[in-house]
């Protein structure tokens, strides 16, 4: 399990440049599906033919990141965010840029030289160790994208790494495809590895229009309520995958929610219920397409979402794979 997750985490893929992630996915599932192709928007669509209703499962390949907007006269880089970068967790982070160059994020510290008072995008910069502007311009250009420098910590059943959102969802879908008893599937299956979710659930919107599924399930991360003095939330790492009830953008389809819960109970899979008060997923884009798609989600509880140390429990991941597999097979 670990190896593939690590491979996915280390793949460079900020919104709009997900090629490296898609390459890995293709290699893993090409032999297991009937058709695989990339649509106009770059979504990777894998089709496992079946009779029955069209079910679209979505996990997004992109992660949050940064975009270089200026190279100043001394070779420092100014940048802007891609997706919901949490500014409080930016300064002091290492960044990996598209072409392999790494750098360190710091801030204009004149007003507060030792501690950061108020992180603002206009006041941060990246030092890539270039000695002057000309050297910097040899290494990067305006428009170069970057992500948090990938790293990977594994202890017990926990993994700490950037981009768990949503490489862990991608991993879950890959494993569902590999472990699925395809002949038992009660759906015509479309596994969509979407692009540009973090900047407006864009890939999912156009892909759903193209496929016109009857049902949609997104696999993404959600928050948890199990760290010291945290905002109360009834989700904990290790208590199983979460079935979505509602989030900041939508109310999950009752039919899908109930069916997932029924499956979990029947198969004795521990599960939790997700009520998220802020944030949404590809399921939101799916739901509002055309004359409507009944949509829900299976979520992996995660700590420190949208930072460089997103943390999940592999038991929840295994539970999610099993739950989806059993949901599809009947």
């Amino acid at each position: 399990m670990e190896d593939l997750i690590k491979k996915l985490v280390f793949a460079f893929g900020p919104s709009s440049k997900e090629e490296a992630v898609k390459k890995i996915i293709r290699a893993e599932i090409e032999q297991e599906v009937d058709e695989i192709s990339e649509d106009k928007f770059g979504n990777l669509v894998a089709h496992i033919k079946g009779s029955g209703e069209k079910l679209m499962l979505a996990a997004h390949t992109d992660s949050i990141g940064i975009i270089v907007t200026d190279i100043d006269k001394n070779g420092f880089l100014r940048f802007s965010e891609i997706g919901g970068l949490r500014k409080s967790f930016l300064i002091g982070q290492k960044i990996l840029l598209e072409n392999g160059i790494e750098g360190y994020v710091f801030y204009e510290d004149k007003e507060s030289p030792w501690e950061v008072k108020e992180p603002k995008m206009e006041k941060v910069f990246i030092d890539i160790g270039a000695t002057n502007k000309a050297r910097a311009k040899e290494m990067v250009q305006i428009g170069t994208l970057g992500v948090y420098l990938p790293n990977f910590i594994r202890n017990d059943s926990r993994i700490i790494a950037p981009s768990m959102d949503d490489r862990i969802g991608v991993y879950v879908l890959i494993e569902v495809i590999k472990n699925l008893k395809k002949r038992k599937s009660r759906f015509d299956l479309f596994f969509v590895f979407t692009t540009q979710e973090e900047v407006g659930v864009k890939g999912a919107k156009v892909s759903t229009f193209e496929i016109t599924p009857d049902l949609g399930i997104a696999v993404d991360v959600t928050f948890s309520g199990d760290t010291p003095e945290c905002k109360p939330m009834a989700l904990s790492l290790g208590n199983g995958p979460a079935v979505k009830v509602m989030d900041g953008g939508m109310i999950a389809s009752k039919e899908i929610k109930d069916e997932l819960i029924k499956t979990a109970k029947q198969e004795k899979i521990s599960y939790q219920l997700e009520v998220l008060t802020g944030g949404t997923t590809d399921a939101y884009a799916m739901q509002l397409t055309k004359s409507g798609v009944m949509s829900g989600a299976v979520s992996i509880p995660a700590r420190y979402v949208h930072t460089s140390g997103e943390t999940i429990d592999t038991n929840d991941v295994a539970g999610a794979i099993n739950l989806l597999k059993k949901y599809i097979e009947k």
Partner: protein
Amino acid sequence: MEENLLKELTDKFSPSGGELSVHATIKRELTGFADRIDSLKNGSLVAIKKGFPGKCSLMLDAHIDEVFAIITGITEEGFLRFFSESIDQKIFPGIIVIVHGRKPIKGIIGIKPAHLVTEEETKKAIEINELFIDCGLDKKDIEEIVTVGDFVSFNSSFSKIGNCYSNKSFDDKLGAYVIIEALKKLKRTSPLVNIISHFSSQEEENFYGAITSTYALKPDFAIAIDVTHAVSPGVSADEAFEIGNGPVIFVGPSVDRVIVNKLIKTAENFNIPFSKEVDIFSGTDAIGIQTVQEGVPVAVVSIPLRYMHTPVETADQSDIENTVNLLTQFIGSIDDSFMEELYGEH
């Protein structure tokens, strides 16, 4: 006023996603007044009245979902944590709610007694995650009935005060009521256009019903009937409307000029009192309807409502009746030249 119908509609609990609970009531009321009535997969209810020649369709829209709270956790002592997107946290202390678990059970939301509270504390609103629903049960017992994700409603409190009616969920079952009563009045007439009455789902969440139904039904133009704010102490005439002055017609860049002008002319011709609400967006299903596929010309008519998103939403009987009247007369005066103007503009 069909008081009993209004009470029935608003007493029932229909949170976003749970609109089915009021479908039967509306179906029953509209039987005999529409040519077909269907519950849609997205939770909306649609009733279609054929027009003559019925080449085009007007969609009348009102949302039948109401605001709600949702259970987010159960404490060791058996108290329920909850959250609400659209209800002011200051409403909750001291009320009775219904938790819709395996079966509906009553709960109350109380606050700390006086001797534990400082003067300063009383000046601050209690955050929603510091409030708990007390159903008088311990953890084991409550867990038999309630789980995280269950919905919570206000207890019903239908009343008539002066010339006004009050209850939860007048937003927007007043709109549904208005459409029902208008259809009843139109029984003997045949409008030029088909009338699609759309009782929509999940407006309070993300316009799911309005957007997806419009895609399926493809109306040629639409009018949303919703509520707007009414004047009360602390809410001035700068930001709200007096009750008793009739329906409010929305004017602004996100509605269609031709439909709006016709609504205004209709009100003037039939001596129906009205006001104009001028703003950028109406905050109604019209926003979702307007940008489906190739676009739909929309307008919005609202009933002034005090205390929106509380258990005691209050509206004036004459405003409700005048809105029914405006809608009925508008539909009755749709003629070929109006349709030409609507399309000529486009």
